[in-house]
């Protein structure tokens, strides 16, 4: 311990060196003798002391908490607002591509992109849902339920056809989007969403698929009404593209009488899909009922143009090794 103090003074002497030139005369200050558990040599004793130290820390923490709570109660209404807890979302690394709604250039880019005909109400969405070849139970049922969520969608059996052959036929039949659900060992695990006639194509990883049957407290079967769509939290330029892509699956002008909402909620780059029915119980209270299915998507890549895994150009591709450098960095 003495050694430590000495070292400390030596260090601070070095730090003071230049300061002395400025005329401040420092005093030699000794550190108070500090005690550290890790300096105890006996293992048993060290362990015991550590436990005691830990206990003491915990006691202090709880006492502090209690004290703060008391103070808050004493202050009543004048209490300062509670500090916001740190989460990795609100500590997010700044993304320079975050879309500024007043930005003319981005507005122009979005106004003339591949989804512009849909947003200008020139096309009506017509969607083809298919699967990877030879789908098994869950995937088949998932496709059926997805088609009950997305209006004007048609489920077709894949029949071993190549996507590159399907796409020209879809374009000829005026389909605007193609959804391909991929399955692995009877579990749906991937989703390719291709906007027709000329792209882009997004590839998502799909997880946590729960069918209607597996959801507790679900509502009755959804109706044929056009649902409302909620897109949450798509802030960056890439997020906007994905959001527009998902929005263009559903027709404009929802039928509010159906009281059905499809939600795509983005949180930490995972897109959560939920399908609800709501009811206004009173002026303040709203009740919701989940209708299902629910699933989670994570963007793997966006390709310019329709599906072309060999020669297509990627607009964005998730590269784990290069991009996942910080837990606080999000792309959508």
């Amino acid at each position, binding site marked *: 311990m003495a050694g430590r103090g000495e070292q400390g003074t030596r260090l601070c002497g070095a730090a003071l060196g230049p300061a002395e030139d400025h005329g*401040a005369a420092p005093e030699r200050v000794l550190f108070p003798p500090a005690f550290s558990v890790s300096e105890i040599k006996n293992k048993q004793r060290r362990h015991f002391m550590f436990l005691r130290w830990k206990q003491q820390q915990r006691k202090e923490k709880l006492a502090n908490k209690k004290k703060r709570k008391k103070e808050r109660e004493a202050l009543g209404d004048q209490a300062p607002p509670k500090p916001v807890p740190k989460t990795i979302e609100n500590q997010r690394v700044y993304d320079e591509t975050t879309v500024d709604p007043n930005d003319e*250039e981005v507005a122009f880019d979005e106004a003339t992109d591949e989804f512009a005909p849909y947003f200008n109400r020139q096309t009506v969405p017509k969607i083809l849902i298919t699967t990877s070849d030879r789908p098994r139970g869950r995937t088949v049922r998932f496709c059926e339920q997805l088609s009950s969520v997305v209006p004007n969608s048609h489920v077709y059996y894949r029949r071993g056809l190549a996507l590159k052959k399907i796409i020209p036929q879809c374009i000829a039949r005026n389909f605007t989007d193609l959804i391909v659900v991929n399955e692995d060992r009877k579990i749906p695990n991937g989703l390719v969403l291709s906007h027709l006639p000329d792209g882009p194509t997004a590839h998502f990883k799909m997880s946590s698929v729960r069918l209607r049957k597996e959801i507790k407290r679900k509502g009755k079967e959804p109706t044929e009404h056009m649902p409302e769509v909620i897109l949450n939290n798509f802030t960056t330029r890439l997020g906007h593209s994905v959001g527009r892509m998902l929005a263009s699956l559903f027709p404009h002008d929802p039928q509010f009488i159906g009281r059905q909402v499809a939600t795509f909620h983005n949180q930490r780059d995972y897109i959560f899909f939920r399908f609800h029915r709501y009811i206004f119980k009173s002026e303040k209270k709203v009740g919701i009922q989940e209708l299902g299915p629910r699933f989670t998507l994570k963007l793997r890549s966006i390709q310019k143009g329709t599906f072309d895994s060999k020669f297509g*150009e990627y607009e964005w591709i998730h590269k784990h090794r290069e991009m996942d450098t910080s837990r606080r960095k999000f792309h959508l």
Partner: protein
Amino acid sequence: MASPARWNHVWVGAETGILKGVNLQKKQATNYTASGALRRDEGVCAMCWGDPLESEILVGCLDRSVKLFSTEKGKFTESRLCPGGEGPFRGLAVQDGSLITCVESGLLKVWREDSSEAAELQVGPGVCRMRQNPARPQCVGTGGKENALKVWDLQQPQEPIFRAKNVRHDWLNLRVPVWDRDLQFLPGSEKIITCTGHHQVRVYDPSSPQRRPVLEVTYGEHPLTALSLAPGANSVVVGSARGDVAVIDLRQGRLLKCLKGFAGAVRGVQCHPTRPLVASCGLDRFLRLHGLDDKRLQHKVYLKSQLNCLLLTSREAWEDEDPDPAKAEEVKEEEDELWAAMETVRTHPAPKRAADPGAGAVKKQKRARVGP
């Protein structure tokens, strides 16, 4: 006379038809196309320097107009229509006053300055790139999908002076498809380097009797979309459709290094002729500058639109040269504001530097007080 545009280091053409100038020293990006007049069918598809001094830029648009941008004045000065053929421009070049254009359907035209008549040349369909030989400006090379590399002398346009031969059939005795995506002439020799959509990098040598490539390297599994020769011409930088950029040695055909940080397809790559720097742009809307020696990402600029092509200045001095005070007096009144703006920006770092030692001292004092 001189606008701040001349100090821009990189010029980028976007798919939305915007020409952007980026000054890396000041970390500024400027749009030189009025945002009200944007049209997607005017998307930039080819760019080249209009003169060796790099005071003019030729910008080829999707609607077949070629615009002349003056970096001295900082605005578009001329525009001419170059119709004929189909598809977007795949290459632009200038040869003593006349403009060379090449479109995707394979129509190569030479437009004399005064007359609207143009000399025509059919180089074959599916052209992906036309480039000029910097050492012999009357020579151009073309390559494309199922259209192997050809080198043309514009003074004898009947026959190409070099016509590449496809490589031998593969081990299944099947024909190897041809898809040259980009090409470049090696300075100091007649060699030509191409990169293909089937992820090969090939070197052709017209001076040897062999018409097949003398060197072939494969890199990655995705189409190679752009290439540029590194200073020294011993290695080449190639970019792929997945956003993989690599430096490949041309003597041994080895992969030297990979550059990281790309999120989408690379559309344009250019190296600085002398400094170890490479600029690249692409569909991920970022302009990136990497150091070739240490592979470090030096600059990353978000440019808001998908970028098609870029031009990197070959200027040796990277910093802005100080405008002469005498020159500044000549400047018209309109531009006084511009100059004023520039000066404020320029003087910003100066006080910082002056203040730096002081700030350091304060810090040290603080530490001294806090330390013990």
